[in-house]
């Protein structure tokens, strides 16, 4: 069953084409690694799919709901943007309970879930500390819990492991896989290519607003003509370079 679908989805800002006729089809329970250089249009794509901005043309749906139907979309999605959306004056516990309340989640079950997630991410002892005093990693963990708290059908994660220590990053990676196993579709945007390599079923590479490559990591890294195996980083650099020859040279060198 398809959870994310777009058809010629386009977003233009004045003269700038941020997303150019994007076609996506992402199935239930899969992890979609969304790669691209800075300014390729990844964040704009995520904002389009979460209903935070309107497309210039084209259509899209998330969990069967058109992306222009913001009220219909909300219950189905969780979103962790690159900058964790947290309130400095609140504690992690207050923030999470507040968001759970706004989503009308059942109190007791939610409290248990919050405790479990805080525990898994090693944040229990700091849950009553104000977020203003949190490190970047602690903020990232809180924002992650916030995005998955209501067990959405689709989760959009923008650089979820940014600022995390190796142990916490590993926990997040495992949690992403658990989410996918439980049927949640994960749309994962990151620059940390090994994370994508490890958890993604499908990888899409965006360049100048266009999807220049898509496929399973092992397919992308397999050179069709020669049978040579590349790393995902090689593929990424090759596909997103303005001067492919130079990059190939650099890679070979």
């Amino acid at each position, binding site marked *: 069953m398809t959870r994310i679908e777009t058809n010629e989805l386009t977003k233009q800002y004045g003269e*700038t084409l941020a997303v150019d006729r994007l076609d996506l089809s992402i199935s239930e329970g899969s992890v979609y690694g969304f790669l691209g250089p800075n300014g390729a249009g990844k964040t704009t794509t995520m904002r389009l799919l979460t209903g935070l*901005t309107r497309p210039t043309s084209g259509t899209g749906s998330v969990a069967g709901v058109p992306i222009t139907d913001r009220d219909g979309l909300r219950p189905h999605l969780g979103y962790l943007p690159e900058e964790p959306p947290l309130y400095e004056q609140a504690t992690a516990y207050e923030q999470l309970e507040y968001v759970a309340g706004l989503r009308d989640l059942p109190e007791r079950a939610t409290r248990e879930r919050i405790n479990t997630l805080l525990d898994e991410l090693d944040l229990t002892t700091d849950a009553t500390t104000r977020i203003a005093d949190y490190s970047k990693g602690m903020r990232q963990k809180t924002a992650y819990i916030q995005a998955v708290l209501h067990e959405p059908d689709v989760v959009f994660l923008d650089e979820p492991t940014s600022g995390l220590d190796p142990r916490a990053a590993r926990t997040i990676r495992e949690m992403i896989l658990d989410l996918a196993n439980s049927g949640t579709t994960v749309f994962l945007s990151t620059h940390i290519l090994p994370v994508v390599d490890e958890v993604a079923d499908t990888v899409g590479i965006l360049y100048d607003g266009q999807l220049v490559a898509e496929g399973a990591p092992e397919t992308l890294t397999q050179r069709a003509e020669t049978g040579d195996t590349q790393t995902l980083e090689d593929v990424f650099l090759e596909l997103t370079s303005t001067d492919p020859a130079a990059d190939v040279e650099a890679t070979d060198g």
Partner: protein
Amino acid sequence: MAEPTWPRHALSIGVFEFRRSVRALWQDKAQLTLRAFGMVIPSLLTLAVTIVFADAIRNLEPFAVPDMVRGTVALFWLFGVYLIAQRVVSARPRINAESLMLTTVSARTVAFGLLVAEMLRILAYAGFPILVLTGVSVFLLGSPASLILLPVVAVLFAATVVVAGSAVGYAVALLVATSPFIARHKTILGTTATLLAMGGYFLFLYPQISGLSQAALAWVPIGWLADLAVVGTPFVGSSLQAVGVIAGSAVLLVVGGLLVERETAVFWFIEPVSPDTEGSVSVLEQTTDKENLRPATQDSLAAAVTPLVVPRFVSTPVRRVAEWALMRTRRDPNRLMFLLIPVFAIGSPLVSTAVQSGSIGALGAPLTAVALPWLVGSLFAMNPLGDEGAVLPVTLTAVSGDHYVRGLIVPGLVFGLPIILLVTGLAGLVSPYTIGEQLGLVILSGYLTVVAVTISPAIGMAFPRFSAISVGQSRDVLPPRMTAVAAHAVLVLLPGALLAALLVAPRVARTVLAGVFGFVPTIVLELLNSSPYGISILSTAAGAFRAVVACCTFKINSSDMAA
């Protein structure tokens, strides 16, 4: 369509946002103290006046509510609408944690939640004065109805002000976000609008200026809240207008609420236009525009502050810091909102006194000579370390302390000083003072400018603020600490005012000095002398004084012997 439970969620957002404001205020003790004084002192004064005149209030003869009262309520309401609109446009057009809120609840829920929060903030400030007034009305005027009606009037006033102000504010924010022309000229347009609003306010507040009085605004229906407030008291209002204002407020709340919902539902989901382009280019995309990646072919920092030009004879590091300070002040005028507090707190009563006594000319020149240097001193360096933000380590390792401080001082001296000398000179020409006094004021203004501009980096660095005030999504808004503002104001305005008074009104100055250094200690000593413990306190103080003198004498003698 919003979720069915949106009113409950809006209330929840309102309460949460209000709690956040309280916590933020609690952490800033100086601001908390200032606001608490602003709230408690008027209430205590009202209470004191009430106690003193309790009998007179009890025996008041019934009389009709005059148009002046209705007009005054309407004037304050309009001013409140302006303040809220201004706050929405400059401080909180976008919401905090926007991506979270807008993917969690509907825009309507968020919008109404923010309205509730703003209303709670107003009621928190007005709570104590309303309590005092209600007590007066119930106990002295014998009106139990006031127990309900006065709080209802306060809530209606706050709710309508917030809804109307927000509707206007979001409309303006939408214009700024969609029109490149308005976005490009928002500072000058905003300043003009502020001056017009303030001018209109003062026209009605001081009938001596224009002949218009508050009574001329009595026709504005919101002023009829006065008729509702006096129900049950000896004052006689119009019953029709009392009912009318309830119905009118309800209509305003519904229409205004719908307007706010529509505006925010558009505003929060569009990409604001860039002030630097004609087309609609999102700020998100600006940094990725490849045109911008070309190396600069001109002095971009100097171009950013044109038409102002920092002289070339200033060394490059100092010039760069100066240009940066100028650019920051120009591009982020929200940071200067803090200046409004002293301007209103001190300026308003001064102007009021001058207007009422017909001595604007006499006050204008000394006021200019003292207040303008303070203003210019506050513009560029009241929080230099905090203003640098994340760039601070780079700045501190790139430029020497000497150059940095000089760079912060340069804008005030190069651009502020000539303007202040000119304005004070012009103000002197229309004043009744002699040429000598006028010249003295001009020299004083120059001296004060140098003092104000040079001490502001020191004060700003001694009392820095590093964490941004949480105003909407604008995390760059980083006003100085209140302690720094107060210290700077005290160090510039008090001596400045005294020097100006010595120049143009020496007798007044001498009286003040005599009061501070002569009468006050005398009165204190007299009081101590007449109290039963006075003698012992005085003898203890004298003993301590003798001990200090003995200690000093011993040290001097010891050093003499050693020599």
